[in-house]
């Protein structure tokens, strides 16, 4: 090492630039698996039993409402001319948008080598899958004669006809079903090593069990977790292919997630309706989707980390980083709102300008201003570190984001439709109690699935979190390297 004369360089990071570690208190590798698997292995806590009961009942309400709709007809919803797309489509876009944060965290942040994603990616991917399930329900039931919904798929039928692929609605069918399938594959592949962890732990615990019932359930669980762990042995020859496949799946999911909400926006943008027929829609929808999804991740993660005592794995730094993504995407959404107005005026199309004036000052102005305040104004509070590190404030703001993004979709769908081209066809749309209860019901469906996930699967990617600790680095002294930093092991 030669240093310039008279100058001495310190290779140590200055204190104010040091980053907080991803797992606090230098927790050991064993601690990580004990902590995460403990949630699965321990008895069901009281809060879990109470919340799953409530969620299950709300889910049943959802199914009841869907059953009522199917047996009676779409008249039970508030749809009528001119507003033929109501809450069903609003809810569909809202739920599918929420899913996008999960894929952003699991795929895009992986490609960008953001190591902090490892603590939250499993839960966020689960959120994606369950949100897409809730989303998928709505297009299926809103077709009216739900027993013909299979005509959306290219399945040979007795009429000898095929779906018409020029319609963006059909692109949407492929986009959403691909999105669900690929998210599930990606999530499952990430789970394989962790399912093996649970399998091996059950095997080690089996020897201590005495009661025959305990032994039976232990054996059953070993078989079930073991079946899905595919006989994983942590072999490095396997890890090599596994990591490559993981990278490729991340590389495939990235264009996928960007395409899904773009195609959802085509449902609107390809039509001729003022307020829908704009080229800004694909990027604007994608940014909004990620924004709303991070809102939902924060809503779920903040209570989870404190109830399950995961503060050392999902640290305040993780929450802060998510707040920053929310702030950035929220500001993009705010820019899109402004740009829409500018183009409506600058484009010189009087119908377009009318549609936008009507949004902000017409009969649905209340919805528009709820949207603007929730999505553009309140998230600006995330500029302040004091807000980003205050869990109560972040939790409240995350719910504000969820509400705001629901209203965004409501504004787009309903205000564009309620002023038809002929003033004699103008109308005002209001939901019915069936609309409202179905929407609330899907939250029950979502929470039921999510709570089952929290209880029965490792909600933190154990092997990935282990991989980002210093103990996992063969060149770090905690990983067993002899020299202090840097020595080639």
């Amino acid at each position, binding site marked *: 090492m030669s240093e310039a004369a008279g100058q001495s360089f310190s290779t140590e990071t200055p204190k104010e630039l040091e980053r907080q570690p991803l797992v606090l208190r230098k927790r*050991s*590798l*064993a601690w990580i*698996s004990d902590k995460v698997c403990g949630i699965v292995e321990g008895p069901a806590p009281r809060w879990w039993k109470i919340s799953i009961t409530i969620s299950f009942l709300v889910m049943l309400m959802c199914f009841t409402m869907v059953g009522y709709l199917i047996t009676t007809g779409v008249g039970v919803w508030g749809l009528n001319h001119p507003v033929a797309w109501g809450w069903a489509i609003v809810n569909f876009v809202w739920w599918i948008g929420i899913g996008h944060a999960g894929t952003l965290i699991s795929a895009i942040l992986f490609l960008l080598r953001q190591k902090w994603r490892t603590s939250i990616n499993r839960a966020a991917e689960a959120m994606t899958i369950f949100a897409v399930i809730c989303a998928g329900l709505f297009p299926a039931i809103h077709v009216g004669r739900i027993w013909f919904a299979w005509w959306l798929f*290219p399945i040979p039928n007795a009429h*000898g006809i*095929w779906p*018409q*692929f*020029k319609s963006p609605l*059909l*692109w949407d069918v*492929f*986009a959403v079903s*691909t999105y669900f399938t690929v998210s599930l*594959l*990606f999530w*499952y*592949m990430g789970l394989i090593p962790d399912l*093996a*962890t649970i*399998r*091996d*732990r059950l095997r*080690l615990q089996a020897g201590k069990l005495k009661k025959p019932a305990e032994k039976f359930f232990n054996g059953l669980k070993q078989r079930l977790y073991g*079946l899905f762990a*595919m*006989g*994983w*042995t*942590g*072999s*490095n*020859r*396997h890890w*090599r*292919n*596994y*990591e*490559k*496949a993981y990278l490729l*799946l991340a590389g*495939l*999911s990235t*264009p996928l997630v960007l*395409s899904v909400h773009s*195609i959802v926006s085509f449902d609107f943008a390809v039509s001729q309706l003022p307020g829908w027929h704009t080229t800004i829609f694909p990027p604007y929808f994608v940014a909004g989707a990620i924004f709303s999804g991070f809102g939902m991740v924060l809503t779920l993660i903040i209570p989870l980390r404190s109830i399950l005592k995961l503060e050392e794995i999902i640290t305040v730094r993780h929450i802060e980083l998510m707040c920053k993504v929310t702030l950035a995407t929220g500001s993009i959404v705010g820019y899109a709102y402004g740009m829409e107005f500018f183009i409506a005026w600058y484009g010189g199309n009087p119908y377009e300008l009318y549609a936008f004036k009507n949004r902000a000052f017409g009969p649905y102005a209340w919805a528009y201003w709820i949207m603007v305040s929730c999505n553009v104004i309140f998230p600006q509070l995330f500029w302040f570190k004091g807000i980003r590190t205050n869990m109560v404030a972040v939790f409240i703001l995350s719910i504000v984001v969820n509400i705001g993004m629901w209203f965004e979709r409501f504004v787009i769908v309903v205000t564009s439709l309620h002023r038809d081209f002929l003033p004699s066809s103008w109308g005002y749309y209001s939901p019915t109690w069936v609309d409202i209860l179905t929407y609330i019901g899907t939250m029950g469906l979502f929470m039921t699935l999510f709570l089952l996930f929290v209880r029965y699967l490792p909600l933190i990617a154990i*092997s*990935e979190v*282990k*991989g980002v600790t210093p*103990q*996992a*680095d*063969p*060149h770090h002294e905690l*990983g*067993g390297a*002899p020299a202090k930093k840097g020595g080639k*092991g």
Partner: protein
Amino acid sequence: MAGTYGILAEFDTPAATMAAAEKVRDAGYTRWDVHTPFPVHGMDEAMGMGNSQVGWFTFAGGLTGYTVGMLMIYYMNKYDYDIVVGGKPLFSGFYAFPVSYELTILLGAFGSLFGMFILNRLPRHHHPLLKNRRFAKVTHDKFYVVIECDDPKYKEAAARKLLEGASAAHIELVED
């Protein structure tokens, strides 16, 4: 050596495991493996392995997806049930693109996952190592180097000496 699968050495840290792997590699063994709770950065080089071949499966899947998408739409909307909608052409690569694009990703993803399974010879639920009690910590916090008896260079004494020389925390034979 009937009844024995191989020799197993346990390590406590990734650095020790990697040093041992380098020794085993340099000794010229071919049927051996390192088992770790998470992928250890640099272990592929320490084991002397090249690039993974999963990408070919992904490529094949993606190519199939795109081709199937385009051909399916051509067949359905131009050949088998040709109907003019809005005066647009019966077939155009533009309107067929979104669906073909999604199918590219869908089959590419299946290719990646199943390619990983095929190359890893998984699922394999009855592996001699999975029967070994000590090995159950492999998904927890221990690291293992295993040399199989099937290795042409395998001699128990020499292998044991090599692993002992790599300062293994524990060495034992694994039943087949």
